[in-house]
């Protein structure tokens, strides 16, 4: 096949009659007035045109791509190579959260020391935060940006999604970053608006909030805005239809969910609780279809992601692009030696006083940003924009405890081994029916000790695949019966690079694939049965879940669409 990256993206025209010329892809670039052309370029780059406007990969691209790679909805348009893989964390609290304590710069300096390139400050949405914290935290963030040049620090918030769980919402830095976040929080936060109940009206408010963020980008108030659902299965209140509706509300904003929650130290003996603080039971607000298994973590991951053939796969099997991440959710960190500032008046000041030296926190459940959980984004450059583009494109893999050093997964036409060809994570490979397709997996094994002072050993890599069956009729579906582990590779060596290839043969039907790996220390048959996932992640044990002894990485999917 072979084609450059300059190919014209002739996506399906935006639907509707009265679309402005910039939005009407039926009007070629050459026929646009300069102002419209500039606007179209901006929108296209922000992932808001064509494929970016689609919830599923099935509606992006055109038949003209008889043999070509494509991108999932959004992102920076089908790049295939020369990525900088930038590690980050989009879920971090500071003293501007009532239940947290660190300064912004404390979190930022630790994030940098632990090897992160980007981070998002996500203090809880609340009345005090909407009134005070959202403003006050900004100068702290601006100062930290100036102090730590090699770290990208976004301002965001942890949104109380009306009728649902929490979510990270963040924006590109700029002169309106605070104004947009503040307006958003005041108008759409479930706590501020007393809209926590699972009612249709509150679900609609959540949709309106996501649309507001998309509009803020289209109006060029901010250069980008993203939404990722946090700890989605923790309380069973993110129903499948809500997740689908968030994505549909604006696919350039609502891009995914935490595949692994934070609080990974919470299952250690000191605290005696569950990994991730996943110790809830169903409530009246919970989606009644979720089994009890969904309320616990499996190998440190959220049930929606850890179950092969489960909720995440049901979205991917629709062709619905929905990405996963892994974060610290740092509030108060395990084995830290500080405590919340004394004599704080959070409601009055919107923040706790600066932390002070205090007793050893052996029962805290969190790790510092980057200490344990990392979200790796394939970015075209080290910039705020590129990280958001990479996230939107789904060019993302996640790991715990530095299980591996680097990962390159590509769907390829069989035999094509050029380094920068093939379709990377989050992408769509479009081929003629009957083309031989394979996936290549290139891994740089860990070569330096992680933050618990051992070099992790990768034991096994699994390729998971399933047929793409199109949009579901039942928006509350959460199984993908055709998805399973199709191949497991044992890793025979402990250092250097390992490469695996799995052939899908001649492909006639649309499908997707994703990859996961483990240190192999804990496993049990998957919840959909041993025939689907013979060595899946094991249920984490209350009070005995040493997260360093149970390591996994997960990569986001690639679709293959024969046509």
């Amino acid at each position, binding site marked *: 096949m072979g084609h450059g990256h300059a190919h014209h993206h002739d996506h399906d025209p935006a639907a509707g009659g009265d679309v402005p010329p910039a939005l009407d892809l039926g009007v070629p670039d050459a026929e646009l007035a300069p102002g419209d052309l500039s606007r179209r370029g901006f929108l296209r780059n922000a992932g808001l045109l064509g494929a970016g406007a689609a919830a599923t990969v099935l509606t992006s691209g055109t038949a003209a791509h008889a043999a070509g790679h494509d991108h999932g909805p959004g992102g920076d348009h089908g790049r295939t190579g020369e990525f900088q893989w930038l590690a980050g964390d989009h879920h971090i609290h500071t003293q501007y959260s009532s239940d947290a304590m660190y300064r912004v710069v404390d979190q930022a300096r630790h994030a940098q020391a632990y090897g992160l390139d980007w981070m998002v400050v996500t203090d809880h949405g609340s009345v005090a935060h909407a009134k005070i914290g959202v403003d006050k935290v900004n100068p702290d963030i601006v100062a930290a940006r100036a102090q730590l040049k090699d770290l990208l620090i976004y301002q965001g918030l942890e949104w109380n999604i009306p009728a649902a769980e929490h979510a990270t919402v963040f924006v590109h830095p700029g002169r309106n970053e605070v104004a947009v976040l503040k307006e958003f929080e005041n108008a759409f936060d479930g706590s501020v608006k007393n809209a926590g109940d699972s009612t249709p009206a509150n679900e609609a408010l959540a949709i309106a909030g996501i649309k507001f963020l998309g509009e803020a980008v289209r109006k060029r108030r901010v250069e980008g805005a993203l939404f990722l659902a946090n700890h989605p299965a923790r309380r069973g209140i993110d129903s499948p239809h809500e997740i689908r509706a968030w994505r549909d509300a604006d696919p350039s904003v609502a891009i995914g969910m935490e595949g692994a929650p934070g609080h990974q130290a919470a299952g250690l003996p000191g605290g005696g609780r569950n990994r991730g603080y996943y110790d809830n039971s169903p409530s*009246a607000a919970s989606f009644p279809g979720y089994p009890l298994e969904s309320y616990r973590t499996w190998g440190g991951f959220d049930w929606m992601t850890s179950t092969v053939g489960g909720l995440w796969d049901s979205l991917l099997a629709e062709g619905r692009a929905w990405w996963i991440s892994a974060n610290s959710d740092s509030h108060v960190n395990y084995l830290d030696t500080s405590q919340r500032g004394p004599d704080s008046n959070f409601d009055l000041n919107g923040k706790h006083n600066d932390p002070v030296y205090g007793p050893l926190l052996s029962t805290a459940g969190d790790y510092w940003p980057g200490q344990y959980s990392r979200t790796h984004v394939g970015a075209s450059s080290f910039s705020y924009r590129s990280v958001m583009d990479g996230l939107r494109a789904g060019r993302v893999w996640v790991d715990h405890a530095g299980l591996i050093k680097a990962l390159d997964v590509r769907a390829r036409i069989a035999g094509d081994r050029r380094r920068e060809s093939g379709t990377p994570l989050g992408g769509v490979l479009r081929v003629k029916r009957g083309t031989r397709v394979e996936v290549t997996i290139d891994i740089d094994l860990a070569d330096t000790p992680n933050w618990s002072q051992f070099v992790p050993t990768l034991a096994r890599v699994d390729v998971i695949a399933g047929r793409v069956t199109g949009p579901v009729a039942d928006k509350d579906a959460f199984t993908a019966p055709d998805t399973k582990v199709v191949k497991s590779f044992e890793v025979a060596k402990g250092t250097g690079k390992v490469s695996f290839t799995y052939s899908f043969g001649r492909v006639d039907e649309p499908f997707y694939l994703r990859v996961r790996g483990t240190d192999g220390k804990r496993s049990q048959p998957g919840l959909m049965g041993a025939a689907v996932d013979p060595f899946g992640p094991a249920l984490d044990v*209350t009070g005995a879940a040493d997260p360093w002894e149970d390591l996994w990485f997960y990569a986001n999917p690639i679709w293959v669409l024969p046509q």
Partner: protein
Amino acid sequence: MVLRQPHLGPAAVILGLSLGHRTVREAEHWLAAHVVPLDLADLVACTHLVAAPYPHVALSVAVPAATDRLAGLPSTPPELRTAAERAAAEHGERRSGRAVRYPGVDRLVGRLTVGEVLANSAIERVVVLGGATAGPELPLDTRDFVRPQWRDGELVLVVMPHHTGAVAPFEVADPTPCCADH
């Protein structure tokens, strides 16, 4: 310990109630204050999660013999009657419902074996989260809080592995509240 196999025959009276409690904890407090003192033999009292007309917790109370002691309980407001009827029906069919009071519950304290739990209470099956059935010798750390559920006609207790080496009930009495240091 006196071993007894409590009899859980068909209920003579099943009362559905819905008083708009927002959480299972509130519903349990109400049961403790209003139903437990009635001193009903072989009482089974359950909570039921209900979505309509708004998310709340309904109740069902079943006893094996006819009694007039339930007559003093408050009546369900009209807008919650469907929820109350549904709770009674689910309990009657033993399809769903989370049992707070049931024969033997007071004996389920400290560490027991799965076999002792089955022998000493109305719980009919113990399953490990993820699907496996627990063998009778398996130690079970009750944490003094045991809430089985009706499933397919049986009163089933779901457990999960615990750091003590035993299993423990899936449900904990003090789940981590939302936004409490996390």
